[in-house]
């Protein structure tokens, strides 16, 4: 009994001593998150930067580690495979984002034109493909694309009379198209959602006024909807570009970078360098380059978001 009272008094005394004022209390609340983030994100990031300045090949322990300054970066940028991967990534991003933006706008316009339970249901249905695990999406389409027994080629042959439909994932040209289709399938619903929300922010009076002045639906689309959607479109472009830049799961499930490295994106190639060839330093340098590209895109995104 006595002992417990002492503990209580000591505890109260401690609280008196530590009497935190409001700002300090707020800081204390943020501290756990800040510490975790610092230790588990900032420190590894800095470690990555430092690794990019070293030559370190895990498959060659005898060579050990040696400081090489910026030569990893030079090697990376001069490396034809890396250059190819940048080209591949750019093609993929541009292709995927264009398709998603166009179809996203199209679907959003259609959904906006009729607000009822049917379109609400259709919207929910259209969002299903965005809910999947990316690797599962890749698996689904690998099965669809399978050359001889894939259902896509069956449909092309039997329903559309295409005599020799392509072996999608086996040829470089069609593999990229195939990947873009998968990306569009997964991400168009997301774009549609953003653009639809953006369209819903446009007041109806503008359209009514235009209609009274004799504007057709097409004109009001191009002269009212699109200009007022600038911000939403910019957001879609930036977010999708950043994501397309980071794509990995679909590549892994569908092509593993092939055929003939035609779908080897920057992230995939860096993965190979770091975790197949085990070049720690070079891999770190490549991942740093990727970091800066994404960093720049994010700065633009934040600027647009806060306009």
């Amino acid at each position, binding site marked *: 009994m006595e002992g417990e009272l002492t503990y209580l008094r000591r505890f109260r005394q401690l609280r008196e001593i530590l009497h935190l004022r409001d700002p300090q209390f707020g800081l204390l609340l943020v501290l756990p*998150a800040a510490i975790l983030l610092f230790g588990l994100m900032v420190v*590894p*990031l800095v470690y990555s930067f430092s*690794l990019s300045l070293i030559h370190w090949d895990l498959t060659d322990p005898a060579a050990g580690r040696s400081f090489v300054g910026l030569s990893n970066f030079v090697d990376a940028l001069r490396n034809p495979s890396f250059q190819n991967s940048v080209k591949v990534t750019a093609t993929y991003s541009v292709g995927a984002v264009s398709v998603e933006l166009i179809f996203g706008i199209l679907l959003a316009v259609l959904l906006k034109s009729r607000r009822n339970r049917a379109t609400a249901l259709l919207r929910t249905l259209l969002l299903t493909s965005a809910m999947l695990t990316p690797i599962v999406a890749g698996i689904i389409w690998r099965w669809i694309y399978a050359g001889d027994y894939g259902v896509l080629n*069956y449909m092309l042959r039997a329903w559309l009379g295409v005599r020799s439909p392509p072996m999608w994932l086996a040829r470089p040209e069609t593999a990229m198209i195939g990947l873009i289709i998968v990306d569009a399938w997964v991400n168009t619903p997301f774009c549609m959602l953003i653009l639809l929300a953006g369209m819903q922010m446009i007041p109806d009076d503008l359209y009514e006024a235009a209609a009274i002045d004799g504007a057709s639906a097409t004109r009001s689309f191009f002269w009212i909807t699109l200009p007022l959607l600038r911000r939403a479109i910019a*957001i879609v472009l930036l977010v999708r570009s950043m994501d397309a*830049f980071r794509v990995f799961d679909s590549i892994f499930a569908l092509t593993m970078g092939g055929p003939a490295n035609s779908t080897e994106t920057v992230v995939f190639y860096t993965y190979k360098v770091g975790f197949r060839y085990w070049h720690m330093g070079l891999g770190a340098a490549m991942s740093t380059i990727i*970091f800066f590209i994404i960093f720049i895109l994010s700065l633009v995104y934040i600027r647009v978001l806060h306009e």
Partner: protein
Amino acid sequence: MTTWFDGGTELQVTRLRGIIKYRRGAESLFIYMFLAFAAVAFLFPIYWLVLSSFKPVVDMFRIPPYWTVRSIHVQNYREAFVVRPFFRYMLNSGIVATCSTAISTTVGAVAAYGIAKYRFRGSERLFLAILALRMVPVISVTIPFFLILKRVQLIDTLAGLILIYVPFQIPLAVWLMHSFFSEVPPELEDAAKVDGCSRVGAFLRIALPIAMPGIAVTAIFIFISAWNEFFLALIMTSEAAKTMPVGLAGLITGWEVIWGPLFAGSVVYTLPLLLLSSFLQRYVARGFLGGGVKG
């Protein structure tokens, strides 16, 4: 459209109305048909997956393919979950996702509350710094993660995976929950404090219950991202801590693809996702457009 009660013109107006109704009807037809076609196109691959998961191997490769279920074969499911260790993979995924979500949601909620309710020097900067960390691409920290986990012998452990998921989840958690805590009226907390409630008490008894729906949504979001994570799990696990996405990808080897369990595993793994994401749709656009949209 105005109505003119002039004998002759009225007739014309009615006819004009008829034409407009007809045009709007045809327009509606086109819209609904296009949307329905799009819905079918988007849903068909999922249907195809589920359908294929119930086909025996012979039926899978049949041309012309079977478009509907002939009979429910559970062979693929048995092969995946009884014969092969996909039940364990799924359990691993569940544990990692749950634990990492619990940690980041808790830590994030407390931090978001601190930033939302207590202005201290540098709180704005700290908030932006936390948000900025969201932009770090996974690949840029993967090599350090690998080397660090290897050093502390946490490769191929669930704990190791949880540990590296958390730093990616916290910024998202703080970002989402900050807006929810901001919406808690400060008057309520002030009233409670006047009545003798401590600051911690105000958080636990006032702010938390009010913000709970938002916290739940955040937790679901984070859980889903952990559930779907592939890259880090691929690199950091081997067999013991292998998660489902990695396990599924493992059925695609260089020589052959083992389709049966691949389909079955994919279907089962997707079910919880469809359940959870039906809660979420409303909130996605709001977050990305900066909170300017209602519902």
